[in-house]
Every structure is written in structure tokens, then in C-alpha cells.
């Protein structure tokens, strides 16, 4: 794969990474189809605070070839699973000022229900898997912090004492794990959301 590439296409699927402004009209036109009865567009925009703490600017970086590969895999899965006509996903990189779009996902399908569901699921898959990183700049002496989507907390190691999913059981603390384990996954440790006062 060309490691300089910033977009990939496959039947009914388009993914891209760009340092430019994102354009909602462009991505909608990519999925437009006479066989579609609905286009659902999701636009993720950059928020001015994290838990009340003011954020001055966001910086996104990516492992481009791997991020594009993961994005196209998600799009192909969503297209097949929800019977979409078409799906497109574009992520912005570099500095993104507050209030601007950092990600656009557009899906088209014959009927609206599938489009709503696919749009939601595509975003969740993207946030949990695509190799893109967000740095929140607080300004002044505070600097910035690399965010981690899995827990809404900065990217810190989860302590060994945190609850873990037994390797053999197939069941997690919240019931069965419904998707197969991915290679390399154990490196991230268990996905937990520690809450104050809830630790053993």
C-alpha cells in the first residue's frame, strides 16, 4: 500500500484523511444514489472543554496507512451488515479549531432505519479502533494531553489491580464478550471506567 495515500476506495466505500476543512456537501454527494431513500450524515465537532476544563485547540495525528485500512474495513463491514448503498468516512488531521468538524460520516440506504443504525455503529467502531489520536491543548503552562477514547480519560496505564476479563471464560464483567478478540488486544488491558468511590 502507498504509505503516502490519504484516501482509499472500494465498492460503495470511501475513506479519507485530510488536513483541509471538511465539507459536508462533498461527502453527501459521494454517497448520493438514486436507489437511496435516505442519507444520514454525522459531523463530529471539536468541543471547547473536557469535563469543564477549557480546551483551546485540538490536534489530531494518525498512522495514515493503518488508519485508512481500518476505516475501509469498518465501512465494508457496515455496508454489508446494514445493506447500505454507500458509505464514506473522512477524518481531519492537524490542528482543528474549536467548533469545527473533525470527522464526517455519511451513509446512504434504501430506507432510513438502516442508515441511522449504520451511521451510529460506524462512528462507534471508528472511535474504538481507527489509529487516530487527539491531543487537547489547554493553553498556557498546562500544555496538552493525549486523549483515549476507551475510557474518556487521558491515555494512562490501567493499574494491574483493575478488574480483568478472565482469558478463558469468554464472559466479561458485564456479560459475554460478543465480538472475537483481536490480535494484539491484550496489550491494552481490560477496558474499564474507574469511578471515584467504586474501587475495591
Amino acid at each position, binding site marked *: 500500500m502507498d504509505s503516502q495515500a490519504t484516501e482509499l476506495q472500494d465498492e460503495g466505500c470511501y475513506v479519507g484523511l485530510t488536513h483541509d476543512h471538511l465539507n459536508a456537501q462533498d461527502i453527501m454527494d459521494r454517497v448520493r444514489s438514486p436507489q437511496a431513500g435516505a442519507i444520514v450524515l454525522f459531523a463530529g465537532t471539536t468541543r471547547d472543554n473536557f469535563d469543564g476544563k477549557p480546551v483551546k485547540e485540538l490536534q489530531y495525528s494518525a498512522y495514515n496507512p493503518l488508519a485508512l485500512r481500518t476505516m475501509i474495513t469498518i465501512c465494508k463491514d457496515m455496508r454489508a451488515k446494514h445493506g447500505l448503498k454507500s458509505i464514506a468516512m473522512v477524518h481531519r488531521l492537524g490542528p482543528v479549531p474549536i467548533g469545527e468538524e473533525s470527522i464526517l460520516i455519511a451513509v446512504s440506504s434504501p430506507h432510513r432505519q438502516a442508515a441511522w443504525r449504520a451511521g451510529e455503529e460506524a462512528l462507534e467502531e471508528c472511535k*474504538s479502533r481507527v489509529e487516530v489520536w487527539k491531543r487537547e491543548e489547554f493553553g498556557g503552562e498546562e500544555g496538552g494531553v493525549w486523549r*483515549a*477514547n476507551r475510557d474518556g480519560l487521558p491515555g494512562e*496505564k490501567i493499574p494491574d489491580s483493575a478488574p480483568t476479563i478472565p482469558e478463558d471464560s469468554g464472559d466479561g464483567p458485564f456479560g459475554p464478550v460478543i465480538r472475537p478478540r483481536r490480535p494484539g*488486544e491484550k496489550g491494552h488491558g481490560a477496558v474499564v471506567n474507574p469511578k471515584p468511590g467504586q474501587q475495591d
Partner: protein
Amino acid sequence: MVPKPPKGHFNVLYFASASSFTSMESESLPAPLPLRKLFETLDEKHPGIKAKILNSCLVTVNLNYVDIPEKDDDPDQVTIEEGDEVAIIPPVSSG
């Protein structure tokens, strides 16, 4: 753009927190290297990176995720070869 590694070396790419910790985006290390030795090799170059960063990171070799063998006699041992592209993948945060 990451330059090709010199002869007898592989590249390791750093992203996000790993890049902040090392103050670099990539570096070349001597190949071959058993994958299970990767973290300790990096920790020798960047003291503290294993506990602070690597233990919560995933690893890819040539764009494929790999499991780091935990023991020397683990059956699936992988060796990082000359010219390979290894990447340290911290927890992601797109969107």
C-alpha cells in the same frame, strides 16, 4: 515521511503519547530482534517508557497487530526483521 531504515535495521514509529515521551516520531534499531525483547530494548533507550507508555500500547509489524509473547518458550515467537516497520499504538482517540 519516515526514511527507509539503514541496512541491518528496522524502523519503529511512535505516535501520540509514545511520540511525546521519546520526542521523536521514529527511529532505526538493529535487526533482527525477537519481538519479546522489543519493550526492554526500547526501555533501555528511553528509560521509563515501558511502565509509563508501552504497557498500555499495542504493537504492529508491517501494519499487522501482533501479540508480544510473554515467555521465552511461548510457541508463537516472532522476530522483527531487517526493513520491517514496527509501530507503537497508544489507545486511540479519533472522532
